[in-house]
């Protein structure tokens, strides 16, 4: 892979090696200037949270329940407030002024942000998302392992990644290989980090190690989704009996969509205080799996059938996104499988539509 002379020199030029201490120091310094968020080990789960102490970072985490999209598109957000008499106060306390660093995103989550970027900029720019997006520095993290729910290789969204980040960290033998992905990344690295080594042969060795690590992970991801001609497949199977069968299983609980890093649907609601006149306009994540999602006045519901909602989720990800944004809406992070009580699995859905035996 790393053959051409100039490619190698670019690679080396863009790489640094940090020791554990060096990394901690780097993060500590970053914390002084930015809000730094990273995967932190909680009681039961790893959660993206503000870093209090670099030692708390779970470098080898599998996945999080809620993806880092929450730092750009908030689960609850105030769009604006208003006062008695209808005066709109054009302020948004929630939007960060201080830049934030999103550290430790796995490749799939980085790709998911690229997808959200398209959603929130096409035609109309969403000012809330964009303000945060522009203020966010992304420090990606190569995965340490693959879980049986992972299928990023089916979409080319992982475990290798070569863009979409400002820095990319790979943990290797106790040290940290840091690759630069943008001018901003280069700047913060040179300003706040002391490299353990810039020696090209050492760095080359680490790149070889990284490559080996990625190969192991890639090989481990055995359960894939066959995405070839998936659009045609879906177009032809709108009435496949599978959808009716899924209806019996799916709890319509909505978990799969809330945990999905590319789901973005939201509802807007007004909340007034006890004056009944002043209040806030808020937005809250919504989900197409929920009955009320497509309900309009007088009780009409365009997707009252659970099967229709299940289809909407699958079709939106694997079909509609491509029409809407010229990109697939799934990054294969596997969250919807892990956090589904019924273990409903898009890979199996596609396999079944193809009439393939369902592998375990």
């Amino acid at each position, binding site marked *: 892979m790393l053959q051409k002379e100039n490619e190698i020199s670019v690679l080396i030029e863009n790489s640094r090696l940090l020791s554990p201490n060096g990394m901690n120091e780097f993060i500590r310094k970053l914390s002084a200037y930015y809000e730094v968020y990273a995967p932190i080990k909680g009681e039961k789960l790893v959660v993206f949270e503000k870093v209090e102490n670099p030692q708390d970072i779970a470098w080898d985490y599998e996945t999080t*329940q*809620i993806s880092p999209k929450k730092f750009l598109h908030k689960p609850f957000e105030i769009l604006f407030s208003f006062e008695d008499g209808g005066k709109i106060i054009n302020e948004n306390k929630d939007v960060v002024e201080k830049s934030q660093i999103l550290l430790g995103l796995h490749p799939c989550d980085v790709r998911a942000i690229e997808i959200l970027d398209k959603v929130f900029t096409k035609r109309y720019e969403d000012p809330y998302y964009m303000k945060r997006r522009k203020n966010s520095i992304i420090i990606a993290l190569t995965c340490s392992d693959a879980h049986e729910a992972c299928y990023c290789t089916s979409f080319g969204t992982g475990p290798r990644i070569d863009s979409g980040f400002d820095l990319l960290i790979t943990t290797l033998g106790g040290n940290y290989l840091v690759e630069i992905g943008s001018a901003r990344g280069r700047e913060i690295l040179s300003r706040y980090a002391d490299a353990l080594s810039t020696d090209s042969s050492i760095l080359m060795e680490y790149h070889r190690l990284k490559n080996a690590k990625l190969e192991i992970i890639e090989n481990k991801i055995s359960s894939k989704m066959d995405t070839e001609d998936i659009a045609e497949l879906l177009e032809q199977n709108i009435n496949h009996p599978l959808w009716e069968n899924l209806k019996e*299983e799916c709890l*319509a609980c909505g978990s799969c969509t809330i945990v999905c890093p590319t789901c973005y649907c939201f509802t807007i*609601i007004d909340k007034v205080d006890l004056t009944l006149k002043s209040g806030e306009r808020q937005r809250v994540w919504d*989900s197409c799996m929920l*009955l009320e999602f497509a309900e309009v006045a007088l009780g009409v519901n365009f997707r009252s059938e659970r099967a229709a909602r299940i289809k909407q989720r699958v079709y939106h990800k694997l079909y509609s996104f491509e029409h809407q944004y010229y990109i697939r809406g799934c990054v294969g992070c596997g969250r919807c499988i892990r956090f589904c009580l019924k273990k409903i699995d898009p890979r199996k859905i596609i396999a079944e539509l193809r009439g393939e035996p369902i592998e375990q």
Partner: protein
Amino acid sequence: MKKPTVGIFKFTSDAGCQLQILNLEKELLELLKLIDIAYFPMASRNYGKGPFDIGFVEGAVTSTEEIIKIKEIREQCRILVALGSCACYGGIASIKNHKPQRELEERVYTDLTAVHSTKAYGIDQYVKVDAYVKGCPIDKNEFVEVVKSTLMEIKPNLRPHSVCVECKLREYPCIFLTEGKVCMGPVTSAGCGALCPSKHRACEGCRGPASDPNTSSLARTMMEYGLTPEEVRLKFIKYAGETQAFKEGAGVR
């Protein structure tokens, strides 16, 4: 403008929902600027006569006297709100509906000929209900939301989707998946902020069924997690065993 008059009525219940109203220490004085509580025996000797603009009814209907009383109250109230799972579904009191009547009575009554307790139902078994505030007990904030929207003459924004959504939005780890605690959240109506899972307790379904609840599917999962059919049945016949959805869940063998 005259403040709307409010009546708060009690049927068969433990008064917990009424207490939740009194627990609105921070909002109570503000609320009283908006409404005139004309009937609230738990707090006042004033027995205001109807008609009332809004009636809040706590408790299940469990006797012939109460059936008559709820109909009278309906007549007196322009808007009638069921307060808490007892009034919405029969609540805890409705557990008795699922026991053989004889077994139940023999344990409590000495004189069987005198029994006149009816099955415990939510008030909409007998009268039209305009709004429901679910929960055992009600969530105070939801109560305030209902009061506010009633005063503004709009429908309150109370989403009846699963509790799971609230768990996920607030990033509580799913205790069903992480701790194997059998949880009613996937079929239970949200609004409590996933209180129980947030405290490492399984949701017990106190708010009754969510919208489009797949109780049969959940019942099957519960059994996969080791519950016996009887244990599953008991889970579904606790707070809202009279609802169609929970009945279905209770019946899965």
